[in-house]
């Protein structure tokens, strides 16, 4: 008798969640961050509705500081999949020239990511937004529901979470409220990698090790991706074999020295590694910026 494997069961649960949103929510959108979790989420959405297309668009909140390879990948992937893609940029922030080098990571992230996301959700009046967050990423996520409700001001109230028994999700919202839906809640980082391998899902090449120009900024190796890096800093660039364990704004994403150039080698490195995933993400180390606090303020 065939048995469902852990990946089969995780996939089936995610498909159920994604379909439920499409069936019950008025105006859903899938937030696509171009990372590996987004790649898995998009793959699951394609499966959930096959042979139809997913009945919602993708949206990328572009801080304008993403790796160039991410943007190329994003546009190509959306076209290949036949998905509508909305790209939102905080124009106010652009006008004021907000960026990580000039304003620091805290201000940059708040204006170009958190505020920008709120702008976009308000602009298109989305009632539900899929996100690729997982419960194993961080302590406050472990307690967050799969359907996570946000007030009209996009605030998360951990005290007012709805119970989710069985696979029954209450998707009803009051005027102005919206939902964040996390179909990958029960996946771990290892599950994601195993699934990418099993399904042959394409991911941004930055995850694989290659010789890249990096500089050391605030104690973290970051890649020189364009000429907006201050010249003083860019001058110090050296070539190293590095890869990225998470992808975001290039000045805020720490590179790890690695020679892992295949999926197998990445998984091997991950299994043998000794530090948790978020260590390379500058945003998390920033003073007092706990994920929980950020979420209450509206950061996804």
């Amino acid at each position, binding site marked *: 008798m065939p048995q469902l494997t*852990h990946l*089969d069961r995780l996939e*089936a649960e995610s498909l159920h969640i994604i379909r439920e949103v499409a069936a019950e929510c008025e105006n859903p959108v899938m937030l696509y961050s171009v990372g590996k979790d987004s790649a898995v989420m998009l793959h699951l959405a394609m499966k959930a*509705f096959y042979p139809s297309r997913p009945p919602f668009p993708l949206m990328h909140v572009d801080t304008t500081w993403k790796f160039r390879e991410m943007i190329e990948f994003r546009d190509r992937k959306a076209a290949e999949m036949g998905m509508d893609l909305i790209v939102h940029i905080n124009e106010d922030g652009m006008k004021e020239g907000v960026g990580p080098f000039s304003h620091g990571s805290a201000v940059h992230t708040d204006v170009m990511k958190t505020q920008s996301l709120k702008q976009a959700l308000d602009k298109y009046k989305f009632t539900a937004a899929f996100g690729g967050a997982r419960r194993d990423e961080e302590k406050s996520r472990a307690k967050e529901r799969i359907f996570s409700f946000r007030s009209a001001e996009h605030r998360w109230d951990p005290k007012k979470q709805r119970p989710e028994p*069985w696979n029954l999700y209450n998707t009803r919202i009051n005027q102005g409220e919206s939902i964040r839906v996390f179909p990958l809640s029960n996946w771990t980082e290892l599950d994601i990698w195993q699934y990418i391998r099993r399904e042959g899902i394409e991911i941004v090449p930055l995850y694989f090790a290659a010789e890249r120009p990096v500089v050391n900024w605030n104690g973290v190796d970051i890649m020189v991706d364009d000429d907006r890096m201050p010249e003083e800093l860019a001058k110090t660039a050296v070539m190293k074999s590095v890869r990225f364990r998470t992808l975001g704004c290039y000045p805020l994403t720490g590179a790890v020295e690695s020679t892992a150039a295949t999926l197998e080698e990445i998984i091997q490195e991950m299994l043998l590694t000794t530090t*948790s995933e978020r260590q390379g993400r500058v945003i998390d180390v920033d003073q007092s910026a706990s994920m929980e606090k950020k979420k209450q303020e509206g950061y996804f």
Partner: protein
Amino acid sequence: MRLTDDLIATDIAAYLEKHENKSLLRFITCGSVDDGKSTLIGRLLYDSKMIFEDQLASLEADSKKVGTQGENIDFALLVDGLAAEREQGITIDVAYRFFATDKRKFIVADTPGHEQYTRNMATGASTADVAILMIDARKGILTQTRRHAFITTLLGIRRLVLAVNKMDLVGYDETVFNDIVDDFYTFADELATDLEVQPIPMSALAGINITSRSDETGWYEGPALMEYLENVPVGDRRRNAAFRMPVQWVNRPNLDFRGFSGQIASGTIRPGDKVKSMPSGKQSTIARIVTADGDLPEAIAGQSVTLTLADEIDASRGDALVAADDPAEVSDQFQVRILWMSEAPLLPGRRYLLKIGAKTVTATINAPKYGIDVNTLSDMPAKTLELNQIGVTTISIDQPIAFDPYDVNRNMGGFILIDRMSNDTVGLGLIDFALRRASNIHWQAMDVNRDALAEQKAQRPAVLWFTGLSGSGKSTIANALQKRLFALGKHTFNLDGDNVRHGLNRDLGFTDADRVENIRRVANVARLMSDAGLITLVSFISPFRSERQMARGLMADGEFIEIHVDTPLEVAETRDVKGLYKKARAGEIKNFTGISSPYEPPQNPELRIDTVDRSPEDAAEEILNYLRENGFLGA
């Protein structure tokens, strides 16, 4: 035991082949911090290498600083957000944790054990295959243990681990262990007849019988905890049951393809199998099992698939595809067990939304037959259900649905209740059995129908629902309006709150529950009157939005006219025609609307009447105009 297979370093491809095909076990841990639950989970995570070096470093530092284990690692700190949560006043909740061994991936629902977290435990238990009940060897079976065993078996878990922890503190004494196990068996029989219990003596702190059997308990011959968790069968129960799949989404990419998408709740399905669509009962044959990876020859419980049928039968979201030779039952009235999850108590008679499978219907919940004391497992009288209370009651819903009893099929017999105003999930329910089969329901078809009755009177029936504070002028305006309508030759009836309370509703008081029942009865009387073709004037304070909503739902479209007699509290209190406000202020009347009980003003009434600067006759005239303009008064 730790996820440090030599293959990772030597042959990663071989390792991945081996690990791609793990099974998945979901379990729940029940117990309080004192029982060593956090220590146990912390240890499971640690032993399966789910803790990275940076986390371990901070764990070691924290252990020395605030830990309770001297120089040793305090595993409890790994999972205990509890202290921080208490400081922030956040409700302690279900947390989900993950680890994997070489054989399985595990999802742990981690719930606190105190009575005020019953709803969290039930939520965690609803998806679990196994429950671990933590017991302190020094204390034995406590009230808490009974409660945990009851809730987990109520939600359908049939495999329990009796984790007798802290054996190190009783000298690994076999007699202590055996006494506790015997104690448990004497009451386990009351819970379920098909319960499988695995007692394990252990010390989470010292790592005894966690990953492998230890010498300290040489007398114990059963498995270590991890051996048990890695080998206990999963998912077989649902697999062998009859085929069920709630239709979640109708997949129509083009005119040539019509598929029914859903997650299979139980059983197995193959092309050629005969199925019925419920509740319609129409039969067809499975043509294809469609997935993005190609058609499947077979699909089993737990899979999310898309099925196509050989015949064009009408099925939509909320219907269920079931095995034709073993179909689900269909009904609209049930006996159920309900666990109440909201701070606001259940109001019998109020209508709630009920979601089961992919279907959402409106349900009226009757007064509980009895409640269940989760500590003694005995019945107790209950008029309503409070937060975390469990009771047995009957419900009726507004349309028949396909279901199986919960004990036969979790996904076909479990439902949630949603408050229609706040949209909160307020209850969790389990269907026990149907009170009648839907096929027996026949409305008496009348030859002289409501249209004929209204036509005879040269009017359109209407229910004019006057709502507002006591002393706002509802009855006065209604009386004035009735006189005008009578003069025009219209057929009317005036249902007044005070008068109805002397007769039909003599048995009701002014608690929230009684107010709801009061309005339910009056609304139904008004409905009968409008069936008789009358223009009915209803003057009731009717303070709650949801009851007025319920009344509106009873009437035919457009026949319910909500009139908010919008008199400010100060004005009504100054008038105080019946002297009631004075008594309420003096505390002589309890639950008085506006003073000690809330009034929820209508958000979109058909008419809002300001009474401060105008006469009742004036107000009546305005309503009369509305009726005329909307065609209620005939030609």
